[in-house]
């Protein structure tokens, strides 16, 4: 179906043609294992190291500070578990927030079930942590602070540079999950010790991510084997994936100003357009946000139904509704920012990509009010100042 509109770019993005072209030879002609001594291996090694250099330059870090992984979930796990089990460390305390991605949150929770302590900071109504909260939460035995750079659900940006400075001053390692922020906003890498990113959120391939591990940051590997990636992550390098990650990074660097300006304009259009539908709210910060994510709630309807109705109309988006999650709990992020439960059920996340056009946003803003009305007509609740009022 060629007239489908894809507005779920926070879930994943299409691989850009230039990225696919860059990757293609590494499947069937330049297929060597980078660890091999022969010419096939050396070609592959050169490709991996050139890719590492490209991404390092973009991030303003040293090439040897980049550890390629199978994706951002592995990078987050390596940052948190790797810090917890770093040489000469036993036990200790981690600081994070209530709005982290599950790859961070569940890693932190796992640590607390294995003898570590954790503090999960509250956020304000827009999803922001205050740097002072971090300062107050630090203890003598705190070894890691992990805070997302920009929320994958609501887009809100966190004060990463300020938090990084506090951690630096107190000698605590600072990790940020920059999966959604990478390539979209300037990342204050000098104030960060560990940083996770992923290729497929940025028009690169799935199955490749990275963890920046700054010099002097101590981590233990979580995958053991042949000692790849300077002993920090064993396993044969995903050569086509790594080449694709670098190509996607190069593309993002070239296009960023133009693409981000477009995304900001789309976001403003959506906020205005959705705001004109009665009984809606924007979840997250109106301006201090990632450019490509907008999250809304609709009174009186349920998010999974909304996503399915939009899908029928050829529009792909996502929801933090309980009905879309395996545990039937609404999104922990929406609950943490204080969205009333009745509205947390009716959430919709729209996220744009480099391929999104004004026509896509026109289509969304044309279809959405009709679909919302259609579902509200089925619902026993009327939309008003008080959500939970039966119709009469």
């Amino acid at each position, binding site marked *: 179906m060629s007239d489908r509109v894809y507005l779920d770019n926070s879930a994943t993005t299409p691989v850009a043609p230039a990225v696919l072209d860059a990757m293609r030879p590494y499947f069937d002609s330049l297929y060597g294992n980078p660890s091999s001594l022969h010419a096939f291996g050396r070609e592959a090694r050169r490709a991996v190291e050139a890719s590492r250099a490209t991404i390092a330059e973009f991030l303003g870090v040293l090439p040897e500070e980049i550890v390629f992984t199978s994706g951002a979930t592995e990078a987050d796990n390596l940052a948190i578990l790797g810090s917890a089990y770093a040489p000469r460390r036993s036990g200790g305390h981690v600081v994070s927030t209530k709005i982290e991605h599950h790859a961070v949150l569940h890693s932190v929770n796992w640590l607390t079930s294995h003898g570590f302590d954790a503090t999960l900071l509250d956020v304000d109504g827009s999803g922001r942590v205050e740097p002072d909260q971090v300062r107050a939460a630090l203890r003598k035995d705190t070894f890691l602070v992990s805070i997302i750079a920009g929320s994958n659900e609501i887009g809100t940006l966190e004060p990463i540079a300020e938090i990084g400075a506090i951690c630096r001053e107190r000698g605590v390692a600072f990790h940020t999950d920059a999966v959604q922020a990478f390539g979209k906003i300037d990342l204050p890498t000098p104030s960060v010790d560990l940083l996770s990113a992923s290729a497929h959120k940025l028009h690169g391939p799935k199955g490749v991510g990275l963890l920046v591990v700054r010099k002097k940051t101590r981590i233990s590997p979580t995958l053991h084997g042949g000692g790849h990636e300077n002993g920090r992550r064993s396993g044969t390098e995903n050569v086509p994936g790594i080449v694709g990650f670098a190509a996607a990074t190069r593309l993002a660097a070239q296009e960023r100003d133009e693409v981000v300006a477009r995304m900001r304009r789309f976001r403003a259009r959506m906020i205005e357009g959705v705001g004109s539908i009665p009984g809606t709210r924007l979840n997250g910060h109106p301006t201090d946000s990632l450019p490509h994510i907008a999250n809304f709630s609709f009174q009186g309807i349920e998010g999974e*139904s909304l996503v*399915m109705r939009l899908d029928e109309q050829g529009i792909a988006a996502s929801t933090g509704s309980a*009905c879309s999650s395996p545990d*039937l709990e609404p999104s922990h992020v929406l609950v943490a920012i204080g969205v009333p*439960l*009745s509205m947390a059920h009716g959430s919709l996340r729209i996220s744009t990509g480099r391929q999104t056009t004004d026509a896509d946003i026109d289509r969304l803003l044309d279809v959405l009010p009709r679909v919302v009305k259609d579902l509200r007509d*089925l619902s*026993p*609740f009327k939309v008003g100042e008080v959500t*939970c009022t039966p119709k009469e």
Partner: protein
Amino acid sequence: MYTERVIEHFRHPHNMGKLANPSAIGKVGNIVCGDVMWLYIRVEKDSQGRDVIADVSWETFGCTAAIATSSMVSDLAKGKTLLEAIAITNQDVAQELGGLPPVKMHCSALAADALNEAIHNYLSEHGMPIPDALRRRHEKVEKDVAALDKRYKAFLDREQAKGDVAAAGEPSSCN
């Protein structure tokens, strides 16, 4: 994840909306947990003098499965005698839809419960005898509601503390 039958009922739901002059209403679910179903029935005597569900409709706040099961239970109940309708189970509803994902089975229970509650309310309002099976299911629904209220009390307390009561709604008043 959903069967074609589920998608079909979700796309083109049957018997939706409010019923004019209903004989009884069954209200189940809780907005706090994301599913609320109101089921309206109009009961009339058939030629043999039996109580028959002459018309049925529903209003539902919920996911794809909640809307599809509302539509299906209304199809199953329409034209049935009250005794026949009482015998409709959540398994019947799910089966007629070609099955539901395990995590969504509670939606089919909700649909069958709404029908039960409507019939229970009709019989009690008319001082008619309530079959044991129906009474037991009614008691179970009441227990489920209490359990849900308890499970989500922490959430509600939090919202009350934030002064969001009006926005969140009182769960007991919307059941």
